[in-house]
């Protein structure tokens, strides 16, 4: 039964993905390519978010912080290093900050973590702005890196595939089993000898690393980046909605949520630019009320119902 759910959710996600993958191959113009990049961006981010928040049930509002760290690092280092080196430095900074935040807040109850992650983007933004004003005396940077939209697309696709791969491997390992116990009952988990803080920290860092890389890979898409653009809290919010809509405990759940919502937001932001945030908020609240366990959970319930009938 649950396998069927996975298959269904996976089918939906895969078909959308296939369309997205085909887009740049068909040479169908820049619009489709750009849409494909956005789909992949949110697909990766939502999957990374669910990787940590699904099993641990810690609501992380820090996506924008890590995404921004990645994007801004690329904007600063730019051409001074080869592309791979830039990505590595961004990754290093993201991991270091995730370790710092994780070590200090993950041992405590979930509420502290929520509050901390709520303000993290604002905090990093302020520190970056302060640094730019006082040290480099120049807030905002132009990005002159010769990486085309098409290259961004392929890099993101590779990132998505590797994230899904890591997820599958992790689920099959001892770590995956430990995660399931933590998700069901953390007290039980500690009693059977699982080092819950260490595992939560590992997951948080992993998820933050993916988010940082996504930001870094996407940076050349903008020609100009300032802290306000890089650390836009809206990204945290959208990623959260997508992961929740899809369901956070299934492999393709976050993707199944990301694809329809990216398309919906695309339509909304084009047609109602002034009321976009309002509609975003309403969409999110509707999901909390009507699809509390995500599409994956909904499918599972429908099927259980059929079977019992």
């Amino acid at each position, binding site marked *: 039964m649950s396998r069927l759910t996975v298959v269904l959710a996976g089918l939906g996600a895969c078909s959308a993905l296939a369309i997205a993958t085909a887009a740049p191959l068909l040479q169908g113009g820049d619009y489709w390519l750009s849409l494909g990049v956005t789909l992949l961006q949110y697909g990766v981010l939502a999957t990374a978010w669910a990787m940590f928040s699904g099993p641990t049930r810690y609501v992380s509002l820090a996506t924008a912080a890590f995404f921004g760290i990645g994007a801004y690092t690329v904007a600063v280092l730019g051409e001074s290093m080869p592309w791979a080196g830039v990505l590595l430095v961004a990754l290093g900074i993201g991991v270091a900050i995730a370790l710092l935040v994780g070590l200090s807040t993950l041992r405590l109850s979930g509420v502290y973590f*929520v509050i901390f992650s709520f303000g993290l983007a604002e905090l990093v933004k302020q520190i970056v702005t302060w640094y730019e004003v006082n040290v480099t005396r120049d807030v905002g940077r132009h990005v002159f890196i010769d990486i085309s939209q098409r290259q961004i697309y392929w890099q993101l696709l590779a990132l998505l595939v590797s994230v899904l791969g890591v997820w599958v491997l992790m689920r099959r390992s001892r770590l995956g089993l430990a995660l399931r116990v933590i998700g069901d009952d953390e007290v039980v988990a500690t009693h059977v000898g699982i080092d819950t803080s260490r595992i939560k920290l590992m997951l948080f860092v992993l998820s933050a690393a993916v988010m940082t890389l996504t930001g870094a890979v996407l940076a050349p898409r903008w020609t100009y980046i300032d802290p306000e653009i890089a650390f836009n809290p809206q990204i945290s919010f959208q990623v959260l909605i997508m992961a*929740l809509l899809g369901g956070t405990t299934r492999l393709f759940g976050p993707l199944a949520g990301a694809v329809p919502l990216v398309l919906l937001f695309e339509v909304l932001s084009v047609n109602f630019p002034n009321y976009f945030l*309002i509609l975003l*908020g*309403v969409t999110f609240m509707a999901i909390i009320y009507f699809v509390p366990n995500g599409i994956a959970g909904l499918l599972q319930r429908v099927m259980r119902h059929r079977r019992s009938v």
Partner: protein
Amino acid sequence: MVLTDVLVGGLTLGGLYALTALGLTVQYGVARILNLAYGQFLIAAAFGAFVLATRFGLSPIITLFLALPVGFALQWTVYQLLLMPLVRRTGAGPALETDSILLTFGLSFLVLGICVAAFGGDLYSYSYLAYPVDILGSKVSANRLVAMVFAFAMTAVLYLLLTRTRLGTAVRAVAVSPRFAPLVGVDVRAASAIAFGIGGALLAASGVLISMFLPFSASLGVVFAMKALIVVIMGGAGNLMGCLVAGLLLGFVETLVASYVDPGLTVAANFTLFLLVLLLRPTGLFGKTVR
């Protein structure tokens, strides 16, 4: 001279933070719902005061007294209409915490969206009592002083309301033990809704007071929500005295950092203080007295 500047500055700012967080601590302490939309509603109240002051020439002090019942009604309705379905669904169990955090996060974007649609992203301010007053050789603008006086007065009134009235006793009973409060005839959900309303009255009042002396924009809601959250956690959820002390502490630290280090690092200072308190006393400064 400089020392009195810091003292007076810290006291006005800290008093305001305490008031801002007071409503949140009542909401969280009683209803067990962390209202992430708190700061956004506060900014909405500031916009309300701005419109009333500039379009209709209404004194912010009158707006302040209008804001109390309006804020109460609004947040009471938010609880009854928007949060009650979640309370029912989760049976007020542990899932409520996560669900309500998510819902109020969504709500904050809804309110932000309304503010942006109506006012755009610019900074707004209006002039009210904007002349300096001399206190111990330190110059403070009169509006800041008025705001501080009201902040402390309202804290006192809230304290009396909670400790000296029947309603306040019921609300406190729920804060202490939501499971046993029904045994002595307290309607937990009604008391939670009232606590939400009280929080709403306080947040609307803080919004009006802030609009008197700080330029504000729609995007500032996050900052206020974060500061209020930090103060609530530092003081211990539902702890009024803790909230007051933590608010003043935050105000002083911020004033010190702004005047001796760099005004651009106040958020960093907030977070450092928050982290220190979390690492040293995870239950808050007054953690032991809670529950």
